[in-house]
């Protein structure tokens, strides 16, 4: 390797490392700027700074999502507040127990406000979570996947052992048959339910309505008649897409087409706000230096 090649390699490594460090610093700077603005009760600037940090960060961050959601809650932007607080509670954002508790508390406050607004305006909002929703959520958890899969593999092993050695021994055969039945049930029932819930979540991803109110129409287009109005912060499922429009469904079954930018999917790695979503009906959020 010549001296010139070695120097080029060293320069390349330094430039690469510097750009990463610079990006990291910009995220921290924006984050600190946001927290300072929030301490001054300048929630517009805080939200803008947190949005900047979120746009620069290529991954989920529970603390960033929580702060962003809380800033929007203080601004009265219930849709974005709900969206970011929900992202803060996502396990992929690795929330600490403190963040999780605070996010749930703020989510409850935002939810109460959204329900109140929906009552006064006549807009539609998803019904509060029920035990059934919690059950469905629990079924979709990874531990159910592990249990069902291990039960299936255990069933294979137990079946082999049963047929090879235990079939001729009546006392042990009874116990092994019971074990086989239990493993088969655990494999089929929780496994089937887990597959169903994961498939539903994949085919119909959850999303949050961002603007304060969105008209859901009978078809994709502004000329189509309005079926109902969705409250900002309402949780919906995205059933279908058409250029610029999404077909959404409330848990009660009510469906309508809304502008694509008015709903943000919860499973997206990047937060919707940083992608420049619509602010229709929401209080204006000041940019950097507004305050």
């Amino acid at each position, binding site marked *: 390797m010549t001296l010139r090649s070695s120097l080029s390699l060293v320069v390349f490594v330094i430039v690469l490392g510097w750009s990463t460090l610079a990006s*990291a610093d910009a*995220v*921290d700077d924006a*984050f*600190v700027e946001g*927290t300072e603005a*929030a*301490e001054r009760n300048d*929630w517009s600037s805080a939200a803008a700074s947190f949005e900047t*940090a979120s746009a620069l*960060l290529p*991954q*989920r*961050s529970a*603390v*960033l999502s*929580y*702060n962003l959601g*809380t*800033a929007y*809650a*203080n*601004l*009265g932007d*219930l849709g974005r*507040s709900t969206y970011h607080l929900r992202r803060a509670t996502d396990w*992929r*954002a*690795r929330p600490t127990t*403190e*963040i999780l*508790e*605070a*996010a749930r*508390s703020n989510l*409850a*406050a*935002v939810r*109460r*406000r959204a329900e*109140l607004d929906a*009552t*006064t305006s*006549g807009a539609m909002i998803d019904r509060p979570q029920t035990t059934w929703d919690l059950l469905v959520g629990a079924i979709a958890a*990874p531990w159910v*996947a*592990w249990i*069902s*899969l291990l039960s*299936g*593999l255990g*069933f*294979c092993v137990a079946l*082999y052992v049963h*047929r090879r050695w235990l079939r001729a021994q009546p006392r042990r055969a009874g116990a092994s048959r019971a074990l086989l039945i239990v493993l088969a049930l655990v*494999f089929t029932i929780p*496994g089937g339910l887990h*597959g169903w819930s*994961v498939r539903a979540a*994949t085919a119909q991803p959850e999303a949050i309505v961002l603007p304060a109110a969105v008209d859901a129409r009978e078809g994709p287009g502004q000329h189509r008649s309005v079926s109902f109005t969705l409250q900002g912060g309402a949780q919906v499922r995205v059933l279908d897409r058409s250029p610029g429009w999404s077909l959404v469904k409330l848990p009660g079954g009510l469906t309508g087409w809304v502008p694509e930018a008015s709903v943000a999917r919860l499973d997206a790695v990047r937060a919707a706000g940083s992608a420049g979503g619509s602010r229709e009906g929401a209080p204006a959020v000041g940019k950097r230096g507004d305050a």
Partner: protein
Amino acid sequence: MRSATSQSVRTTFLWVLFSLCAVLLPGTAFAKGITATVEADETQAVVGDVITMEFLVSRSSTRGSLPTPELPQSVADAFDVGQCASGTSRSVQNINGRRTAATTRRVSCPLTARKVGTFKIAFTVPDGKKRVASNSVSIEVIAADGERAPLEDPTVEAPTDASEDVFLWVSTNKKRAYVGEQVTFRLDVYEAQRFLDVSLRTSPTFEGFISEEIPLPEVYTTMVGDRPFRVRPGIRRALFPQQAGTSTIGASELLISRRKRRFSDPIALEILPLPAEGQPPGFSANNVGRYQISAKVDRDEVQPGEPFTLTYTVAGEGNIELLDPGEWAVLPSVRSYDPKVTTERSRGDVVGGTRSYAFLMIPERSGTLSIPAHELVFFDPAQEAYATASSSVIEVVVGGDPNAIVRTDEDEEAAVGTVVDDPLAPIFSTASVPRDLPRDRWLTQERWTMGMLSVPLIVMLGLAGGWAWRRFGPDDAARGRAVVRARRRERIELAQGAVESGDGFHTAISALLQDVALEVAGPEGTGLPRSELLRLLDRKGVEAEERRRLESLLEQCDVARFGAADGGADERHHLLDDALSVVRMLSKGAA
């Protein structure tokens, strides 16, 4: 002979003639018979109602004409006979080779009942020299229940001129009204006879009025002069005049059977302005009628920040959908939202109903919240004076610490744009955003799916493999031979390992030879002493030389095991080679 033949021909001819007469004569008699029938679509009617009567004359033949039925005088006395329609139909049927024919003359007449009583209607038709009478139908005609429909307003002017069979009648319940006061307009079609094609060609105009449709009554019968008329209600409107002066309801035009026309006169109404005396400032001209107002809350004990609903309900008569309820009271330390307004119209000639204003209210402070009475001012045209309806005062107890204030007015001003009222958890202040990328889940969705699908696959493959092994695998004899071979290999290995040391060598060789001998001898060789075993091998066809070598080797082993002549390693090598040679020979022979 000839005489007998002619007699026979004459007899045959007479029989044929008799048969023809027997068959044809009744048919001819039936063909001459005429039947007369009368039918009615109703057997009971009110004076003025129209009944459709059908007079039928029929004959079982398609030839000739049928007489026209003659209506009896009793029909003309009790009913007005409208324009009758007549027609003749012929039918021929061929059922199972038998041909039947019929001719029917049908006369259909609308009869309008004029007199009260029970009338038997029948008619006669000539049939040759005699007359055939029809059946009779009894029609009971009862008196009209009053001269007006029960729903009609007695103040409405009624027609008196009965000179035309059909005419249009428009009227209002009053000729003079205040601005905003209800005037009921009605348009009716009066028919002395049934006219099938009557339509309103020109509808009346209601310029200067707010017009509300009100329910139409059913068709009814009434007397105009001494003639009964069916009244078909066409239009019912509640009119609310919007400006003082003379307002005119435009004329209407009725088209009868696309040829005749009937016109109504326009109606001029004198509309009075609302009196200035006693009129409150900003009074809405739509608040004319008679109203009451009430207030209620859905709960009278709440916590600060807990919403409750305050509902004002206005009930009464008037154009309630345009009612101006006035300014609602603003309660201190209570946030309220625009009301949800619902209206329920009452069904009837007089427009009215209830209109509710539901306010969502959120008290901010503890204590007793007093909701003042709301006053609704309206003009009562019946009293020709302004009146005030008032709701009652309502008190709501707002619980919690009476000294605690959820939000002061100063807070309210400071918190412009701060919409979420519940206390929010503070943000987290850290020097940097954690960047540890979360580990990817090992059990991804794809892996989980593959794993779940592989479980039944493994089970099925295992079961299929087991079945295939049982179906195509070795039988008991083969497995037994395999066991023997394995045991033989084991003994040979043991003997080879013990050649140098001699420990267990002869035992292994003896057992090996014994096993081979038993394998050749078969099951019957088991348990036999050596001499018997050798004889059995002889019977099984083993050569004498082989038997001799086998016996020799076994004896050498016995000597070595039980005697003192163990020999050296070389001798054991020779013994092993000999034993293996014998084993190969015996095994070849057994195979």
